[in-house]
């Protein structure tokens, strides 16, 4: 294996532009790395190296005629719920086994346009419902820092692949923390853009009002470049925003001067593990030493966030997942009549967590309960958004832990869904408010597991959180620490 797979976008771009390597060589290197480490990690569900090599050749010839671009010739691992034409898209569910997507998702189309190569389908919790990737129907993914631990989720495959250097960069999706939390658990960068920043067209919906395509990468600069490519309006998604896409790279000036960092104690008082709290506070202090200013803010409605989320997300999911019935595509259990066929298919091919959330959602939308649950949750959502609005009147970014804990042992929380749900407390509010968020590595626990610093911003303030994240990363340097499990 060449060293190419171990590098990030910034370095590879230099090599590609100087002619020191080709896109084909990058694919070959990443593929070799996958073969070497993925038997231990299981980040990938499918890898189609033949078609990727053809696309790499196409990218190389685009470059040979003078084309340039931040992601030209760079392979991108794709979370298994994003449609890539001609590839499987199982959402890590048995119900979509055998489904081959007939179209490219909006973000995938933008990747192709930029000459990036969708390469490999990475594992996740079934339909993005979970926080550990243990809910995949195709086996668990392991944390590259400790194989007995989970990588987080639901974009656990995306995070583990990047952390184990078997992907240069990957796309995930974040509905309640599904990009930021696995980034934190795996020690990579995770970016959840604002709602509407990246097209949801082709992103298999979990909770439509919360879902957003995100980026997992080896550095903040890589995340910025990738966002620049996938962001932007898509006429096929009514909820995608028309705001112009800034040059995110330009905002990365390496400075923290003048940045007002908001600290809300509520984010540290929600069962956050002391070790995690300490590293995050250290990171914030470090930012102050870099010229940032601290502002104390409050977030009175944080305590409702998890409840609100676990009403609204399952409600939307219960309708979104209705289409998986075995009639038109995917897996099917044959039966005498279509209705029995649908029932048996859903019974046999949805996993337990998915069924649990469909039931929850069906319940809260039922007549007689709608006002008590759904309508009330919408009101509480508005209050949480209001908390954010007030916070960002006083500060530029809000810093907090990403998750209350480091990556837990495989199987530790499987039997306690409520504990698992509470692990989303710090990430959920940003989805409910439609803002943006970043997870940046900020150290390790004594057990050697990564910890992430969360940097939140208001809607369409990606430049702000990227600038702060970049300045911190450049001085703190945790991104350069890679897992030593696979050292050759």
């Amino acid at each position, binding site marked *: 294996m060449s060293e190419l797979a171990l590098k990030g976008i910034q370095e590879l771009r230099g090599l590609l532009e100087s002619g020191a390597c080709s896109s084909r060589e990058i694919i070959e290197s990443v593929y070799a790395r996958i073969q070497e480490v993925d038997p231990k990690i299981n980040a990938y569900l499918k890898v189609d190296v033949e078609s990727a090599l053809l696309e790499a050749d196409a990218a190389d010839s685009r470059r040979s005629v003078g084309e340039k671009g931040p992601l030209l010739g760079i392979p991108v691992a794709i979370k298994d*719920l*994003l*449609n890539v034409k001609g590839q499987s*898209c199982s*959402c890590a569910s048995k119900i*979509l086994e055998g*489904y081959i*997507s*007939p*179209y490219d*998702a909006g973000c995938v189309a933008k990747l192709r346009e930029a000459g990036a190569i969708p390469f490999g389908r990475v594992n996740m919790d079934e339909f993005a419902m979970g926080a550990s990737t243990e809910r995949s129907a195709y086996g668990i993914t392991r944390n590259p820092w400790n194989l007995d631990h989970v990588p987080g989720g639901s974009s656990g495959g995306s995070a583990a692949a990047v952390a184990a250097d078997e992907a240069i960069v990957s796309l995930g999706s974040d509905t309640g923390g599904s990009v930021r939390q696995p980034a934190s658990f795996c020690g990579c960068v995770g970016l959840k853009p604002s709602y509407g920043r990246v097209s*949801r*067209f*082709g*992103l*298999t*919906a979990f*909770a*439509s*009002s919360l879902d957003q395509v995100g980026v997992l990468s080896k550095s903040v600069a890589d995340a910025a470049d990738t966002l620049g490519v996938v962001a932007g309006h898509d*006429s*096929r*998604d*009514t*909820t995608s925003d028309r705001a112009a896409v800034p040059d995110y790279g330009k905002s990365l000036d390496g400075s923290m001067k003048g940045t007002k960092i908001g600290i809300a104690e509520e984010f540290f008082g929600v069962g956050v593990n002391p070790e995690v709290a300490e590293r995050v506070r250290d990171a914030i202090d470090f930012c102050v030493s870099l010229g940032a200013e601290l502002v104390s803010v409050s977030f009175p409605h944080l305590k409702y966030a998890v409840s609100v989320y676990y009403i609204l997300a399952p*409600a*939307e999911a*219960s*309708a979104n997942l*209705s*289409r*998986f*019935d075995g*009639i*038109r*595509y995917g897996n099917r259990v044959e039966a005498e*009549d*279509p*209705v029995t*066929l*649908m029932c048996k298919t859903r019974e046999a091919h949805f996993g337990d967590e998915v069924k649990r959330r469909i039931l929850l959602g*069906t319940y809260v*939308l*039922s*007549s007689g309960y*709608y006002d008590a649950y*759904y309508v009330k949750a919408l009101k509480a959502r508005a209050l949480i958004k209001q908390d954010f609005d007030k916070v960002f009147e006083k500060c530029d970014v809000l810093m907090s832990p990403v998750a209350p804990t480091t990556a837990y042992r495989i199987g530790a929380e499987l039997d306690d869904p409520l504990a698992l749900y509470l692990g989303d407390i710090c990430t959920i509010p940003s989805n409910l408010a439609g803002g943006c968020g970043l997870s940046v590595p900020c150290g390790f626990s004594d057990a050697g597991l990564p910890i992430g610093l969360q940097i939140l911003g208001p809607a369409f303030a990606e430049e702000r959180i990227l600038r702060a994240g970049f300045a911190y990363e450049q001085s703190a340097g945790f991104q350069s620490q890679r897992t030593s499990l696979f050292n050759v």
Partner: protein
Amino acid sequence: MTLLPTIGLETHVQLNTRSKIWCGCAVETAANPNTHVCPVCMGYPGALPVLNKEAVKKTVQTGLMLGCTIALKSKHDRKSYFYPDMPKNYQITQYDQPLCLGGSLEIEVSGRQKTVHINRIHLEEDVGKSTHLRGASGIDYNRAGTPLMEIVTEPDLHSEEEAFAYLTALKRILEYGNVSHCNLEEGNIRCDVNVSVAEADSHMLGVKAEIKNMNTFRGVHRALVYEIKRQTRAVETGIPLVQETRRWDDDQGMTSSMRTKEDAHDYRYFPDPDLAEIALSAEQVEVWGAELPELPERRRQRFIRDLELPDYDAAVLVADLHVANYFEQVVAAAAGSAKASSNWVMTEVMRELSESGGSPADLKVTPKALGTLILLVEKKVLNHAKAKEVFSLLVKSGGDPEQIVKNEGWAQVSDSSAIEGFVKSVIDENPSVVEDYRNGKHAALQFLMGQVMRVSKGKANPKIVLELLKEMLA
């Protein structure tokens, strides 16, 4: 005890937009199965709906034609239930914020005017179509995603005749506004009926049944006759009715229970998070309203006022948009001879249409040709009998009436000296009939008249023949 039925109608109307409501697929339900489908209308993973503006426009225009209040803010909701021909297993519809509210439609039943109030009109999507074959079921998703408008009346109707009249009047309006193809065989208009019976003066409603599966207005009429009779008998004999959905079987001519209120679906409506709220400006609504053609009632009044047509003629002519349009073109070609045009359209043209079952556009007689024909009669080039023969030729093979008259040598003879010759020879050849006439037998004149027309090969101007006969027999 006198029992009064109370009826409300929910009419689903497919809009005649070019593309579907959420995607760019063509609305082509007659095409080969599943040839006009895409990830969006097939409910594929990750596909998202984008609202077709044209569908909003046509719904708003329908609302304007029915005098509804147009909601400048409205939204779409998901209605969840599992059905194999519904791709997403939820239908995107409008639950509590429809596009149009209120409104009314005037109907006439047995010469009596009546106002039917409209409750609401909302915009939703049609589903696919299941076909059950031996040992297998097939689903065609071409229809899935066809824009569908649901027009809901208040429970204002009290007989099957009123329901029928409402549907007929509604169809006329929809045709006028060009919002639907209104082809009943194609299922462009489908109607669910809510009906109950109660004592006429009780001001209470009885236990209602919702009847589904009527494919024609006649079917609605028949289903109502059956259902009102069934409910009336039940009430009279004290058998308790249950609130239920019943299915009309057109072949058997009866309704049967599909499901009772207890097993009614819980549709779990909630706002569709994939779609933004629909926000219209008053200016936009005004522009769409200005694009609408003259409505039947206003047109009827104009026919009476400006064209001086009798009330009856005006009502018959406006009943069908295409007939009314045809008529106006005939009038224009006939240099404004409205009454003569009306006579021709109401008799010859409409007879031809009812025999062929076609529309005026299919006729070989163009409005211009008919107008020319009417002018030929008015200029006395043709008498009425010969004009009818020309019309028959036009029906068969089209063409120009003037050319036909020329080719056939049918121009009417109005030259008195020529006619005098015919009259003279007839008088000479029929002395006994002449005698009868002179003895006061008036029928004899009719016979002589017929003889003159025969001799002239039908070309003599009858008015002049009669004058001359009377003069020469005097």
